[in-house]
């Protein structure tokens, strides 16, 4: 499938003065940022900083206290068909009898091409043989790829992933990076992900959003993620190592 035409300067996600409270306690306050269409963006921050709440608010899974969110210039309910989501916890009974093909078909649009499932499975680097396997028999990395394949089944313009690298090994992580690059380059999909893994973020993202109750930084990782900024974000208890001209950071929390 050819890359979708890209409108110049189109904004995929526009967040303006967003505040969210949970039981009267602010989760984050007065957050404003834009994510350009076609970007891979990541929200970084320590545990409890409001990262997951941020993407859930963008997806209207959590009610906002104040502020405004636009997806491709419209409210989510007008553009829901352009958005897909891979949650952090897709927990299900491992013994549940359901094949990968059946799982994929759950969200396939009626009248969609019968070969679309095979196509998407191939796009995430899996063999079609995986379609006949039971979901519970997949490894963490395979399951992550199946979840992405299902999320992109109906060709979303915006893909949001919550902690996508959790529970996958180094090989799986490398494959995951390739999938995101492929989606961006081939389909011009805007990708927003939440991650603890700064190294992973630095390898692929165009825009980074540093969040810890408030917005600490937003911009390209190269210009934004200095060791000092990361120390501000993660606190003085973290140990940050810079490598390769300051573009590679490892954080021990």
């Amino acid at each position, binding site marked *: 499938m050819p890359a979708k035409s890209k409108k110049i300067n189109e904004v995929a996600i526009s967040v303006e003065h967003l505040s969210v409270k949970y039981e009267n306690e602010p989760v984050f306050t007065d957050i404003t940022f834009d994510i350009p269409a076609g970007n891979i963006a990541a929200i970084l921050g320590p545990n409890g900083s409001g990262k997951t709440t941020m993407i859930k608010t963008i*997806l209207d899974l959590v009610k906002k206290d104040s502020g405004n969110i636009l997806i491709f210039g419209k409210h989510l309910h007008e553009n829901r068909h352009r958005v897909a989501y891979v949650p952090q916890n897709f927990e*299900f009974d491992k*013994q549940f009898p359901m094949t990968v093909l059946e799982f994929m078909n*759950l*969200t396939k649009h009626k009248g969609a091409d019968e070969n679309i499932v095979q196509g998407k499975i191939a796009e995430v680097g899996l063999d079609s043989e995986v379609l006949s396997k039971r979901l519970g028999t997949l490894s963490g990395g395979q399951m992550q790829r199946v979840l992405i394949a299902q999320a992109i089944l109906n060709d979303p313009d915006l893909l949001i992933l919550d902690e996508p690298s959790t529970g996958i090994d180094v090989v799986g992580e490398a494959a995951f990076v390739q999938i995101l690059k492929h989606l961006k380059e081939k389909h011009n999909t805007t990708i927003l992900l939440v991650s603890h893994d700064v190294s992973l973020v630095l390898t692929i993202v165009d825009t980074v959003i540093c969040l810890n109750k408030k917005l600490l930084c937003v911009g390209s990782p190269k210009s934004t993620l200095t060791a000092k900024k990361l120390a501000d974000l993660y606190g003085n208890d973290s140990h940050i190592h810079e490598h390769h001209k300051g573009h590679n950071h490892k954080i021990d929390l």
Partner: protein
Amino acid sequence: MNLLTEIITFPFLQRALVAGFLLGLLLASLGVIATLRKMAFFGEGVAHASLAGIAIAIFAGIAPVPFAVLWAVIIAVLIYWLERKTKLPSDTVIGILFTASMALGVIIMSFTQGYQPELLSFLFGSILTIQNIDLVVISVSSIMILSWLGASLSSLTFLSLSEEAAQVAGINTKLQTLLFYIALAVATVLGVKILGIVLVSALIVLPPATSKMLTTSFKNYFIVSIVISEITILLGLLFSFVYDLPSGAVIVLVGSFIFVLSAIMNSFSKQN
């Protein structure tokens, strides 16, 4: 051959078999989703809560099954509403509602004078008491619920796996969940006449639990659950008729026997 003649001869047995067939289809189909959502206790709770509806109907001299269905809908909506408003775990809400409703049923029963054979048949199930009005209610409700389930199965299954992903995918998760609660409550109460308040929830749990051990795909899981449910009800009703035993207890014992047999087979097949 003699048994077949009797089935043709006795209208009450014909009604019980038709009702049993429909209930087997209905309870197994909904049971597949209920077990996926870990809602086994829901059926137990609604069945016990239906005692109040049945007791009110008998006390007022109206048909118990249609009124119990209405009562089940009220209980299902209350469970849904309280889960969301109180943020209490589902089993806590169901535990409170079913004991309160059952207590109400016991109080109302105490106002009803004399021996109540109909009330006892609701507690333990009886194939003798299926009336034409019951058959009509069971048939109409089954058609409505199964039509809705057929149209909503994919979205209902997806939301049972991840409510958040389903919501983002555009599925009306609140409405589908509420409709599922109502459907499961109505189906449970419809089964009360044959299986009894005490035992009806077994038919929501046993066939899917047995099928789960024998299948690897959702399609087969669904089909085998229904087949096991129908075999369980058919054998249970026939044994109940032949040996003059309470139908609910016999059906549950047949279902439990099939479950144990499947577990043993499953254990041996894994060893090999």
